[in-house]
């Protein structure tokens, strides 16, 4: 027991000893702890000091919030930026420090973060000291103790205004670009290197006949290309995706089966993933191609026309330089197009004597826009001569009247001009012959006309003298006869006046000739005049008419005279057709006869005798020598000319001449009634 007591006592001693030791240790620990606490406190102060220093030197705006979200501290930068004191900044929730549009979102964000303890990050506008708002990114992290309890929130405000603006600008620019792409009437597409359609605008979908863009995306564009063009398109696409720009015309078959002609301008487009696709702008050129084809066809047709037409054609620029000559033109002149083209090139084609006036006329037309028309001698290669040509040109004007182009023709009128001259010459000769016959006939006519008044003059003068010589003189009678003398003298003078235009003819030669042919020529010559007088001419020319030996011009003069007389005689015929028959036929005794029959006024018996006298006429105009001269001519040819009334209306005139050469002209019975 004592043992137990002793052990107990020992134990108590031990406990007391250990308790003392523990208390000592505890006391030491306490001291140590106090020291430690002091040291920690100093350290913490140092940290706080550091932290403030750090916060103050961070190149950003920093705020420190309590776990409930109240502003506890801010750095100088924030104070400077906002131009507000810490006390003022503590009131940020009810001031305009945060942009009013952003404040609700900021509050909500903050409330959530405080509740969840999760870091928060938002973008908003903060008011600068000068009132301007700038964009900031605000990121806040909670500071926790070892237990995880949030001690404070640290928030960093980073100025992102520049970036924000750049983003806005980019967004605007992208939107604009998208709007452009979406509204452009051309197909804008992005096609991958394997042909997959990555993106396309609405116009592109419409161009392919797809109801919507979505139906197009992801499809292989190669499938739209016609089989003929597919390999070409594939090579093109691969070339573009390899970095080459390009242009390609090809055909597609639309989703509705219609075939269209497209033209694509393409450039390589680098994707985000580093691959390269084709950015293409395709245009539907079907209509343009069709128009081009039509234009081409029309041009080809026109060119064919201008090159095959047997007329010389040319065109010139507004300043007068020849810019086109057709094949006929070059063939005619023997020049090359290069030699003729340009300003003044055409002068090489002209006869030297025609150059000056032609150039002046041309320059004048270029200046005024007047139609150009000249008769010039142009070089003709085939026989190396100059031939008369009519050159015409007219300007093509725009709506303002400015000359766009000159178009011209050249017509060879050499033969025509010569024929005209010959015709004029023949007509002159005929007209001359109508007035004039041989010397004898004319002098007889003149003698008759002049002798009548001369006779009166002599008779009156004789009478006058005798009256004055009488005893007593008959003065009154002498005066009367003297007056008659004067009258007759003036009558003679009139006759001379009328004869002044007439000239003596010269001896004309004869030839073997075809009366039908001569008649046809006269008909051709008279056709215009006859038609003008509404005369219906009916020729009946015998097939087997023998040749005659005659002076062609004189015979034609007679025929012409008979035709004109007949036409004149029918001038008053208005109740029926003015029919005129001209007939040739064999006549009795190896003669040929020509008959002209009209339905005109006919012949009065008292006129018949004088019909063939010179200066006798029933017409109001004319000298009245036509029939007289005609008869004289026919008689010189050993023939006969006569006229007679018809049974019906009108008269018939005819002549008959031998088929053989006429005998000497002495057979002509002159003045058969005298």
């Amino acid at each position, binding site marked *: 027991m004592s043992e137990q007591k002793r052990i107990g006592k020992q134990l108590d001693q031990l406990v007391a000893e250990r308790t003392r030791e523990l208390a000592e240790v505890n006391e030491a620990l306490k001291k140590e702890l106090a020291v430690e606490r002091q040291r920690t406190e100093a350290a913490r102060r140092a940290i706080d000091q550091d932290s403030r220093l750090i916060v103050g030197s961070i190149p950003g705006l920093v705020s420190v919030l309590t776990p409930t979200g109240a502003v506890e501290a801010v750095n100088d930068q924030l104070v400077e930026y906002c131009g507000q004191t810490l006390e003022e900044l503590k009131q940020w929730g009810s001031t305009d420090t945060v942009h009013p549009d952003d404040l609700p979102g900021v509050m909500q964000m903050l409330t959530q973060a405080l509740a969840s303890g999760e870091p928060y990050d938002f973008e908003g506008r903060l008011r600068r000291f000068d009132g301007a708002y700038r964009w900031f990114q605000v990121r806040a992290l909670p500071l926790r103790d070892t237990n995880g309890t949030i001690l404070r929130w640290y928030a960093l405000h980073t100025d992102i205004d520049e970036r924000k603006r750049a983003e806005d600008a980019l967004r605007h620019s992208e939107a604009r670009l998208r709007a452009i792409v979406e509204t452009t009437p051309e197909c804008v597409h992005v096609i991958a290197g394997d042909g997959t359609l990555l993106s396309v605008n609405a116009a592109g979908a419409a161009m392919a006949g797809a109801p919507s863009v979505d139906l197009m995306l992801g499809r292989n564009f190669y499938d739209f290309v016609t089989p003929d063009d597919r390999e070409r398109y594939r090579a093109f696409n691969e070339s573009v995706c390899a970095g080459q720009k390009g242009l390609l015309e090809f055909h597609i078959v639309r989703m509705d089966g219609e075939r269209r002609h497209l033209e694509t301008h393409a450039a390589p487009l680098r994707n985000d993933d580093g691959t390269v696709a084709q950015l293409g702008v395709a245009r539907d050129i079907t209509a343009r191609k069709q128009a081009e084809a039509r234009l081409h066809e029309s041009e080809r047709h026109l060119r064919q026309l201008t090159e095959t037409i047997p007329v010389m054609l040319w065109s010139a620029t507004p300043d007068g330089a020849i810019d086109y000559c057709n094949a006929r033109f070059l063939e005619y002149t023997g020049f090359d197009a290069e030699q003729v083209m340009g300003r003044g090139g055409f002068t090489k084609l002209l006869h030297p004597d025609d150059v000056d006036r032609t150039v002046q006329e041309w320059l004048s037309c270029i200046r005024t826009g007047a139609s150009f028309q000249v008769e010039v001698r142009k070089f003709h290669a085939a026989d190396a001569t100059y031939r008369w040509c009519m050159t015409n040109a007219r300007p093509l004007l725009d709506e303002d009247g400015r000359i766009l182009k000159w178009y011209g023709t050249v017509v060879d009128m050499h033969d025509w001009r010569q024929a005209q001259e010959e015709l004029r010459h023949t007509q002159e000769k005929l007209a001359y012959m109508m007035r004039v016959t041989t010397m004898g006939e004319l002098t007889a006519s003149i003698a008759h*006309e002049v*002798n*009548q008044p001369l006779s009166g003059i002599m008779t009156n003068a004789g009478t006058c*003298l005798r009256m004055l010589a009488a005893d007593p003189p008959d003065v009154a009678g002498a005066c009367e006869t003297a007056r*008659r003398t004067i009258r007759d003298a003036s009558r003679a003078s009139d006759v001379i006046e009328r004869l002044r235009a007439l000239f003596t003819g010269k001896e004309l030669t004869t030839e073997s000739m075809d009366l039908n042919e001569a008649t046809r020529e006269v008909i051709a010559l008279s056709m215009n005049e006859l038609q003008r007088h509404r005369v219906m001419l009916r020729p009946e020319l015998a097939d087997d008419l023998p040749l005659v030996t005659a002076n062609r011009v004189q015979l034609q003069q007679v025929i012409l005279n008979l035709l004109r007389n007949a036409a004149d005689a029918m001038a008053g015929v208005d109740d029926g057709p003015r029919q005129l028959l001209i007939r040739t036929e064999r006549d009795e005794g190896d003669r040929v006869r020509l008959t002209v029959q009209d339905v005109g006024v006919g012949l009065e018996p008292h006129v018949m*005798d*004088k019909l063939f006298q010179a200066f006798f006429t029933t017409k109001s105009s004319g000298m009245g020598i036509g029939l007289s001269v005609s008869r004289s001519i026919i008689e010189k040819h050993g023939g006969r000319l006569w006229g007679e009334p018809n049974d019906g209306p009108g008269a018939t005139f005819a002549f008959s001449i031998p088929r053989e050469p006429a005998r000497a002209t002495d057979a002509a019975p*002159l003045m058969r009634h005298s």
Partner: protein
Amino acid sequence: MVQRSLVSVVDDDESVRESLPDLLRQFGFAVQAFSSAEEFLASEFVSQTNCLILDIALVGMSGPDLQQELTRRRQAIPIVFITAHGDKTVRPRLLALGATECLFKPFSDDALLEALTKALGTR
């Protein structure tokens, strides 16, 4: 001249019918003028005419035709032809047919008087 001889003039030229009668009257003849052969033949003066001055070229019946007609009617009137045509070959033919003279216009008053004297003297 107790009774003046009657000279008839047939000419279709009016100035002749005007001037010639005055001259003939100066010569002392009685004168009748006619514009055509037909007019003369139809007149009362055919048998009274002592001398006929006759134009060759007349409208209708010509001078020579009238000459033949008068011969046919046995009216032996001396005829002096006058003509404005200068064809001298006509004169011998007419004279051969019985004409007294053939004067070519213009003729002088003396030539006319001579022809008339010849015509009237030969009657």
